[in-house]
């Protein structure tokens, strides 16, 4: 009886502990904004470069609205401030002419993109009444508006609303499973839809008298697909700069990989922030779909010239291949050094040469009259 009692108490304590951990995670789940946002200033001048609810780290890069590259060189975690140095002016892809929308609609078929939500509880306070809505956050509606925009241009859009809650460190471990499943349908690109958590002044904009929220593109800088994804992100921004200057506010190169290691053309978009109405983000998403369609699939200009889209481009793949082969090669060499002694390496190299080139060398020796 006493043992039974002990068993019940143990189970109760473990359950309490697990629920306590969950409650702790919930307090952390203010969708990026629990610790406040970071303000990043230019080192030397003190001018504000950007603000973000993402954690920033030394080495992170930032592509500004006016196409300048900065690198974070100093982080003050306590005061949520960071300092960046100007690196270079970015040479953006040439966008000679703005593509004609009508031709996009009648262009080739078999266009497909997929959307998912790693943080599907993210919401917009003025519309949703909270910044985080379990099970069905306002961000899902923004994804639907994005899909509507794509459909206008003949792009089939799969929208996956799987919940990856709770909002803890494993959200991306869980959303990786959704992204992998989506990839199996062979989409041309996959987008993870988010919203930011900084003051609304950084995101509000107007396009043709329509209130919109600007868009930020986030790239993971620790994976082999960075160059390919960067190329697509820059193309999107270049087209946006021509049609709606400032609408794509920036590109943030952060730590982590956001499932972007799974395949090329996997991007993360931030549609506005939690402080403005959801309508702004939905309006922005619909307009943004047109820009992404142009970047992905190209189209015809008003003069009838064909413009290639990123879907048909393989630039950036080379550096990705070199990156991954170099890491594998270095890892292999390091392991060989650790796991084998001098004798073993010598013997293995000798054995390999004898086995692989033995017959060739024998022929040469025979030809030279050597035995």
């Amino acid at each position, binding site marked *: 009886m006493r043992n039974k009692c002990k068993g019940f108490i143990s189970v109760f304590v473990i359950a309490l502990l*697990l*629920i306590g*951990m*969950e409650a702790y*995670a919930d307090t*952390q*789940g203010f969708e*990026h904004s629990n610790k406040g946002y970071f303000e990043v200033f230019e080192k030397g001048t003190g001018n504000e470069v950007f603000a973000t609810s*993402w*954690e920033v*780290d030394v080495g992170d890069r930032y592509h500004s609205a006016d196409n300048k590259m900065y690198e974070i060189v100093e982080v003050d975690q306590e005061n949520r401030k960071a300092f960046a140095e100007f690196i270079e002016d970015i040479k953006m892809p040439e966008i000679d002419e703005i593509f004609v929308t009508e031709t996009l609609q009648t262009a080739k078929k078999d266009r497909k993109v997929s959307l998912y939500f790693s943080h599907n509880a993210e919401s917009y306070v003025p519309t949703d009444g909270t910044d985080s809505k*379990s*099970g069905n956050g306002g961000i899902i509606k923004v994804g639907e508006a994005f899909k509507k925009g794509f459909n206008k241009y003949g792009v089939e859009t799969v929208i996956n609303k799987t*919940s*990856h*809650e*709770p*909002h*803890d*460190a*494993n*959200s*991306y*471990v*869980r959303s*990786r*499973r959704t*992204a*992998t*499943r989506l990839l*199996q349908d062979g989409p041309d690109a996959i987008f993870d839809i988010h919203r930011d958590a900084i003051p609304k002044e950084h995101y509000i904009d107007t396009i043709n008298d329509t209130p919109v929220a600007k868009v930020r593109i*986030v790239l*993971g800088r620790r994976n082999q*697909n960075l160059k*390919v994804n960067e190329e697509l992100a820059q193309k999107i921004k270049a087209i946006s700069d021509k049609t709606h200057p400032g609408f794509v506010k920036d590109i943030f190169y*952060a*730590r*982590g*990989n*956001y499932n972007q*290691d*799974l*395949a*090329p053309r996997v991007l993360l978009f931030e549609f506005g922030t939690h402080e403005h109405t959801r309508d702004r983000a939905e309006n922005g998403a619909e307009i943004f779909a047109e820009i992404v369609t142009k970047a992905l699939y190209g189209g015809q200009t008003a003069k009838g010239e064909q413009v290639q889209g990123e879907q048909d481009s*393989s630039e950036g*793949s080379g550096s*990705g*291949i070199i990156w*991954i*082969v170099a890491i*594998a090669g270095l890892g292999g060499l390091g*392991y060989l050094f*650790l*796991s084998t*002694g001098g*004798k*073993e390496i*010598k*013997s293995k190299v000798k*054995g390999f040469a004898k086995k692989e080139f033995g017959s060739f060398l024998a022929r040469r020796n025979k030809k030279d009259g050597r035995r």
Partner: protein
Amino acid sequence: MVILVFVSVLILLGVAHRVLDRLRLTDGGALAVIAAILVGTFIPDIGITENVAVNIGGALIPIALAVYLFIKAGTAKERTRAVVAAVAAGAAVYGLSKFLPAGPEENQFMNYNYLYALIGGGIAYLLGRSRRSAFIAGIMAIILSDLVQAVVNWYTGIPGRTVFGGAGAFDATIIAGVFAVVLAEVVGETREKMQGGTDRKDMAFEDGEFVENKDKMQRNGGDTDEK
């Protein structure tokens, strides 16, 4: 672009094959396991409840392999250590998922997939210095953590979906299992290297295996040990 994807997958499979080789599976066995994981990745998940499902390649095959290695373990002590390592690693992963920052971008050390491998491999290595235990702990750390999360979700009404091994060959489960063994291997080999090698340092390496050093045998009158 296709080559980039192909090379990425090839290298992951290459590492996985080497790891299975180190777990003393035959070449054929290792290839069969990799093929099963790959095929299983593309088979639709098996639904258990509305919010719980399991992927064949990412969960069932690695669990089956972990059970096989567990049964094949040399001693009862090794089996006990493997179970303790798996439970400890599972608890550590679950606990860390609540206390670590909520996104990989906020992680100041490394990608969580590899952090969990480090935890699984590290705990298993500390407990038993066994590659088998490292693999079992790496796989089960993620499976057990997901299991606890699924129970907590059900109990507290969180609508999150749990798909065990849902990303198949690319799931944290496989990554943790594979890299836990790599970690155990690297740490073990580094320790040996720092110690100046094992008994084999006095042996010669011929035709893919260590043999008695003939020169030394002659010098010592047929005994390899220098006394």
